[in-house]
């Protein structure tokens, strides 16, 4: 229909227009944090003992000797052109790091999200449906305990039990060294690439490496889903249209499954979007625990080397991912629920 098309497009445009100042402020914040903060990033990244001439040379090369406002506009211009800067310590373009290590993070978070949705939706719906019964009680207890469980602690316990006690699963890296070295990359997802290459051994190897980190991160994220879906179901069950459906004599099963659950799940899409930020935070910890060579792991390495330029570029990437994710979620929501388009 034409009218639907225009209003959706209008909504999308308004939403996009609102994102521009947000991104601008985010970029400015990062710049202020990393550059205007006192101290000298160049000498810090060189260990604080480099001769002045060497520091000056690198400064000139990276444009750090320019006045601060000039650096700021230079920085904005670079990002607009898709250039996230170059690291100080090993002179790699940040975009290369994103390409090389981003796939690892993406693969981990993708499978973790699947685990989170399966576990979270099941437990959340059941707990909300059977409120104040033992199902609700155990579902909530699970939700609370899993929320209280730091992802690195759960990972450590999983390593102890499945790794060193049972010896079933590997506890670090994305694949065995040989597999990793010989893997021909297409998508950067080891589980997909190995199938494209038709290498069954590589596939099982990378799946084995993926199980512990993905389940760990997924379970922790599921805690959020359980809590929110449960409250949603309870709220929906109190709505007038549920009452109306019951009044019309519709079978209680159908009321719950066809009317309540379906409507209680719509907000989950929003939650998935909000979880992206949480998932990325969790990924930093999971990657560290399981030595998973993703973006979070890389960021921490650069932090340790006091490489301000790399940190700045990677932080921008993380923030942009969250902004884009929330934008996409808003579009999907507007498409599903016409009330959101104003």
């Amino acid at each position, binding site marked *: 229909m034409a009218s639907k098309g225009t209003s959706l497009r209008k909504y999308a445009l308004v939403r996009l227009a609102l994102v521009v100042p947000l991104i601008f402020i*985010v970029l400015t914040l990062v710049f202020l944090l990393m550059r205007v903060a006192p101290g000298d990033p160049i000498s810090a990244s060189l260990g604080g003992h480099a001769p002045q001439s060497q520091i000056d040379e690198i400064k000139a090369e990276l444009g750090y000797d320019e006045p601060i406002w000039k650096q700021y506009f230079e920085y904005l211009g670079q990002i607009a052109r898709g250039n996230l800067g170059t690291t100080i310590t090993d002179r790699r373009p940040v975009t290369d790091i994103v390409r090389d290590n981003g796939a690892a993070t993406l693969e981990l978070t993708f499978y973790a999200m699947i685990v989170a949705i399966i576990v979270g939706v099941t437990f959340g719906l059941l707990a909300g449906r059977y409120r104040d019964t033992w199902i609700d009680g155990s579902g909530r207890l699970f939700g609370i305990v899993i929320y209280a469980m730091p992802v690195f602690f759960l990972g*450590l316990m999983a390593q102890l039990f499945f790794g060193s006690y049972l010896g079933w699963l590997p506890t670090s890296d994305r694949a065995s060294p040989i597999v990793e070295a010989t893997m021909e990359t297409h998508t950067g997802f080891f589980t997909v690439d190995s199938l494209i290459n038709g290498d069954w051994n590589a596939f099982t190897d990378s799946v084995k490496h993926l199980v512990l980190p993905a389940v760990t991160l997924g379970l922790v994220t599921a805690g959020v889903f359980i809590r929110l879906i449960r409250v949603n179901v309870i709220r929906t069950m109190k709505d007038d249209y549920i009452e109306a459906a019951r009044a019309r004599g519709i079978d209680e099963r159908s009321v719950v499954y066809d009317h309540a659950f379906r409507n209680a799940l719509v907000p989950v899409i929003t939650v998935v979007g909000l979880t992206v930020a949480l998932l990325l*935070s969790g990924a930093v910890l999971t990657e560290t625990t399981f030595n998973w060579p993703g973006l979070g792991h890389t960021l921490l390495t650069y932090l340790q080397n006091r490489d301000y330029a790399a940190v700045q570029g990677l932080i921008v990437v993380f923030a942009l991912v969250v902004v884009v994710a929330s934008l996409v979620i808003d579009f999907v929501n507007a498409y599903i629920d016409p009330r959101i388009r104003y």
Partner: protein
Amino acid sequence: MAVASPTDTPIQPPRSRLSGVRRAFAPVSEARGMTRTMLWLGAGITLAFVLIAVLAPVIAPYDFDAFEANGKRFPQLAPPSRDHLMGTNVQSTDVLSRVIWGTQTELKVVIVSLIISIGVGVPLGLFSGYFGGKLDRVLVLLMDALLVFPFLLLAIVIAFLLSDRVGQGILTAAIAITVVYIPLYFRVVRNHTISIREEPFVEAARALGARPLTIIRKYVFFNVVQNVPPLATLNAADAILTLAALGFLGYGIQPTEGAEWGYDVNRAVSDAASGIWWTGLFPGLAIVLLVVGLTLLGEGLSETINPVLRKRPVAPVELEAERPLEVEPR
């Protein structure tokens, strides 16, 4: 029941501050069923940890960094035994002592960070929501921008920048955590203030010529502040997790300044490969238990205070008691 007491006497004295407090706590004594269990269990666990923290000097067998006693060096990575109930770690320190002293560190950081984030977030939200205008728009945009960052990354970067200049102590960790929570308080308080601002009683006060500051202090503040305790409790739980995560990544409390559970779990990762479980299990369990306690308390509080989720006893309750909790329209 205690609930009915304000209206027991026919001639009501002018509302004192105490009756306001009692009214605010009325839902707590009304809580029933699971909510009540959660509330008391959570309060019990939290209290136990507070006691452990306060009594740490008395109950901890050794100092958090002690590796010898009476001139005898502790064994390295010894499994739990009579001398060391939770074993010892790779630096020969007693795990039990570190867990107990860690409670103190954790609670100190959380208290400092809560004070800062409430102290900054609530007033900002009140003023921004009440006065609106340009200041409001700028603050909202700024806070939204802060919420865009994955919270842990923001905390890491702040801790990293501060540790270069201030050092890695309790204050650094608390500030790094605070930056994450100020926007949350700001948002909740601001949105609530906006809805309260248009209420008839605020308009009446305005019509009587009350100054904005008086209105905020006397009429808006008490209505808005009811949201803070559940949020603060849940945030305290979250702050523990953030601090532990910072510690795990090496940006928390410096090991020489105090015992910290997240740091201990990090040190235990390398022990895991050789099947040593006691160095990581106990500090990790301490994190889980404290966070569970705070979460139960916070969820219990928000279920009792949030009228949408609240289940009341069937006994009639006069409307007077039902009024003060404003239902935010959804």
